[in-house]
């Protein structure tokens, strides 16, 4: 059946309300089962041995002593995970990251693993594995690694995307470029130009739940995997490919997930757990420690960005240019490319050029982190935009409004925008009471904008109507923050029934067709589209059954407010049949009633946000404290507004942590020095104020309800909003994130020295 995804402008009954989530009781009573909360009979404990070296050739691994230790049931190395990737370079990198093959490429890189009867035995066994390393020179800084004198991390990599084919290998894996117009000419028309360089340090998603799974490989070649993941179908594909299995023989169940933010979008230890289980012939539970999470999973890129923006006296930007260098860890990525696409996406520009360079470093493999790559680019661009507004003497909000992209604008990354929300978020900020609130001593206010694409993708959903008229909704996108509630609302809306009649679950990989993962803010966008489609398919069957019950033609039956209604005067005495009444008779009218849908949810609507932030800086210590924070963001349509607010607040909080204190700190030896929550400082409750939110709803024309993604955009503006606020509070322009107290104090002291 053809599904029409276009926005219909309907009035809503359920969508937009704020009911309690269906998985709530289990989560407040401790009954919800996360990755580490599942056990199997005969289960072993898996543990991973990791390289203490930033860069080393693995000369020899001797596992014989470990294998002989009583209680050890399996020891695996790269030899137990042979390369079955068949030329798929991206999957080869995933494999090599799961278990180092010829070289350890970062501190924390997995080199072997054991399965034993208990944790103590497993720990002892790791100590008995003997590895001979040949130490190699390492490089962890993005700018250092990009130099042609830097130690090479992979001598088979030659920079892609250069006009002339390079003859020497490089740590720069790719150059990418976006833009239009002629920036040289554009800068020629500028009365004012701001040009600055910025750096941001590497951060981690910081989910509170470490990676955890239980793998059970059976002797008949089938396997089960229980795992916390943002995409169990993707994990199934990865694991099946790396283990040489048919996908359908591996059933993956996604546990409740204790946070992901992009960090649980590809496999880390899961293929290792399966390999251990296969070798031991028993189930294996593998849970990372926090130290392992920091050293070997996640992080986002560290960056180095040069920005140049020019404008006329009247405040029109004439040209904008950026060069962005993003670290990828030791494997090729496309992180700078995304940064280059998003950098100027908020603005209407005749002349724009961005160039991205992907840089290999001896750090963990970069993973997506909430609107990956966009916050760093926004930090650089929005800092420069603020400075330019000041130079011109314009209010920073007015300056942005003047240059904001709108419907019909050619985006800096290429396509022309449809209806978008950057202008409205700026107008909302301009009139927000926060902008007029008085500031105290040592306080400053900053604002900044942010952009994210949002994704759609492959989606499959089942909607089953029970014989009692209740509805079970099985979706394949993992619920990371309340999507079962929003999807239940959507099902209730479309069927015209009460929210309480719907129960949504996340189905395992054997119960439903393939779904892309919950990333790119696609969970509610895609699965709501599939849910609407499934519900409409179910309604078609409900109408047929009602027609049968009434013994009239199906074309004479319409569906309204949860009921089949016979239309036309000839059926005037038939009244209406509720969903429940039809369901009760379903056994006699053709059997179970269900709606299924499989689709590619295309047309995700881009999203914009503008944030306002007040900061107080202690001029004697450099401590910066967020006093007030406001998020204004376009949701398209907020299906469950409370959880939309939650996404806005959570993204802002992560951005605040990133801006002020979070960073990976490496020693000269290339080892990570702060692999724990004590010294990797994510914000605590007392660090933050309430985070006010304002939801704007500019409908996405490509979704029946107008939904856009909401999950990611909120992390994009904070770095810049806070930098701009610090600039206004302390009179110093911070160009290095995080703006930790030593950095702010040093900047204040330098400013004092300079003005003497």
């Amino acid at each position, binding site marked *: 059946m053809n599904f029409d995804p276009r926005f219909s402008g309907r009035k809503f009954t359920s969508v937009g309300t*704020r009911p*309690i*989530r269906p*998985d*709530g*009781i289990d*989560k*407040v*009573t*401790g*009954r*919800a*089962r*996360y990755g*580490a*909360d599942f056990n199997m009979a005969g289960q072993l404990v898996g543990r991973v041995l990791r390289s203490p070296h930033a860069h080393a050739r693995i000369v020899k691994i001797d596992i014989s002593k470990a294998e002989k230790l009583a209680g050890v049931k399996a020891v695996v190395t790269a030899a137990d995970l042979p390369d079955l990737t068949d030329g798929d370079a991206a999957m080869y990198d995933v494999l090599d990251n799961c278990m180092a093959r010829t070289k350890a490429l970062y501190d924390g890189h997995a080199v072997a693993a054991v399965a034993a009867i208990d944790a*103590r035995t497993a720990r002892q066994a790791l100590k008995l594995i003997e590895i001979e390393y040949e130490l190699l020179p390492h490089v962890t800084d993005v700018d250092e690694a990009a130099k042609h004198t830097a130690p090479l991390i992979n001598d088979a990599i030659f920079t892609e995307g250069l006009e002339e084919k390079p003859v020497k290998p490089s740590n720069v894996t790719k150059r990418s470029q976006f833009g239009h117009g002629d920036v040289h000419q554009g800068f020629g028309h500028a009365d004012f130009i701001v040009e600055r360089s910025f750096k941001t340090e590497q951060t981690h*998603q*910081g*989910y*509170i*739940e*470490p990676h955890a799974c239980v793998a059970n490989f059976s002797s008949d070649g089938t396997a089960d995997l229980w795992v916390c993941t943002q995409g169990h179908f993707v994990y199934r594909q990865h694991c099946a490919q790396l283990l040489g299995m048919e996908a359908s023989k591996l059933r993956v169940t996604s546990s*409740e*997930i*204790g*946070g*992901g*933010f992009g960090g649980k979008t590809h496999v880390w230890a899961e293929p290792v757990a399966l390999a251990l289980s296969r070798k031991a012939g028993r189930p294996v539970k593998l*849970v990372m*420690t*926090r130290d392992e999470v920091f050293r070997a999973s996640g992080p986002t890129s560290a960056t180095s960005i040069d920005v140049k923006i020019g404008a006329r006296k009247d405040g029109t930007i004439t040209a904008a240019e950026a060069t962005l260098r993003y670290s990828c860890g030791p494997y090729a990525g496309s992180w700078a490319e995304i940064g280059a696409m998003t950098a100027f996406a908020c603005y209407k520009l005749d002349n724009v050029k961005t160039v991205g360079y992907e840089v290999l470093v001896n750090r963990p493999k970069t993973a997506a982190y909430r609107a990956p790559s966009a916050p760093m680019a926004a930090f650089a661009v929005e800092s420069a935009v603020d400075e330019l507004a000041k130079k011109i003497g314009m209010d920073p909000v007015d300056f942005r409004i003047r240059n904001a992209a709108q419907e019909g604008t050619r985006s800096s990354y290429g396509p022309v925008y449809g209806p978008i929300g950057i202008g409205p978020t700026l107008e909302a900020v301009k009139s927000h009471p926060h902008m007029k609130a008085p500031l105290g001593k040592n306080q400053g206010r900053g604002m900044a904008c942010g952009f994210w694409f949002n994704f759609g993708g492959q989606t499959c959903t089942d909607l089953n109507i029970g014989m009692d008229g209740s509805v079970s909704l099985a979706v394949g996108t993992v619920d*990371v*923050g*309340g999507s079962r509630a929003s999807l239940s609302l959507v099902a209730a809306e479309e069927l015209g029934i009460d929210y309480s009649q719907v129960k949504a679950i996340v189905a395992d990989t054997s119960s439903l067709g393939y779904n892309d993962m919950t990333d790119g803010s696609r969970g509610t966008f895609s699965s709501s589209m599939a849910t609407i489609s499934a519900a409409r398919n179910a309604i078609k069957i409900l109408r047929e059954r009602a027609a049968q019950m009434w013994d009239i033609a199906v074309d004479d039956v319409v569906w309204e407010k949860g009921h089949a209604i016979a239309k036309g005067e000839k059926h005037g005495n038939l009244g209406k049949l509720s969903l429940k009444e039809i369901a009760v008779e379903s056994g006699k009218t053709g059997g179970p009633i269900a709606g299924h849908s499989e689709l590619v949810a295309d047309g995700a609507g881009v999203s914009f946000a503008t944030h306002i932030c007040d900061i107080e800086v202690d001029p004697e210590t450099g401590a910066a404290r967020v006093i007030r924070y406001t998020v204004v963001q376009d949701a398209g349509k907020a299906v469950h507004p*409370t*959880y939309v*607010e*939650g*996404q806005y*607040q*959570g993204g*802002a*909080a*992560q951005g605040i942590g990133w801006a002020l204190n979070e960073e990976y700190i490496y020693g000269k030896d290339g080892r990570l020095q702060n692999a*724990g*929550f*004590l010294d990797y400082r*994510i*914000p*605590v*409750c*007392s660090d*933050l104020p*309430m*985070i006010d939110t304002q939801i704007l709803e500019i409908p996405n024309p490509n979704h029946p309800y107008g939904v856009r993604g909401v999950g990611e955009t909120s992390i994009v503006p904070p770095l810049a909003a806070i930098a701009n606020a610090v600039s206004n509070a302390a009179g110093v322009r911070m160009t290095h994130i995080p703006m930790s107290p030593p950095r702010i104090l040093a900047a204040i002291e330098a400013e004092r020295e300079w003005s003497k």
Partner: protein
Amino acid sequence: MAGVAVSTTINGDAVEYLCQPDETLLDVLRDRLGLTGAKEGCGTGDCGACSIILDDRLVCSCLVLGAEAEGRRVETIEGMAHGDTLHPLQQKFLEHAALQCGICTPGFLIAAKDLLAKNPDPTEEEIRFGLAGNLCRCTGYDKIVRAVQDAAIVMKGA
């Protein structure tokens, strides 16, 4: 390594177990007793996801040995509701959507219960500092603080 026999009280029930001398109470609760409501987010007392109440004191169960529970009273998230009746904090966390992924929720509820037991009428600042030992990465804490404020009002009225 000799096992330690422990007799203790968990959520009001007498419980006996045998544990290793270096085994944490968190591991005992989760792996021996099936009480998986307390979570291990760090294992070093920095995230509060494993919070429990030990003899009326809020502690991280990852920083307590299983052997130390001998003769003491342990309260975990599993004992917070009375049968079908949720504790007001649990109810308010649901109503305010004070959880997204929910992994930190048991720890926050236990910490908030301890906070309100010692200070039934806390200011926002007291709540924020009182809960600073519990990390949440999803919510930005806003809705958590509001849920605790609201629960405090309900509990005072009760």
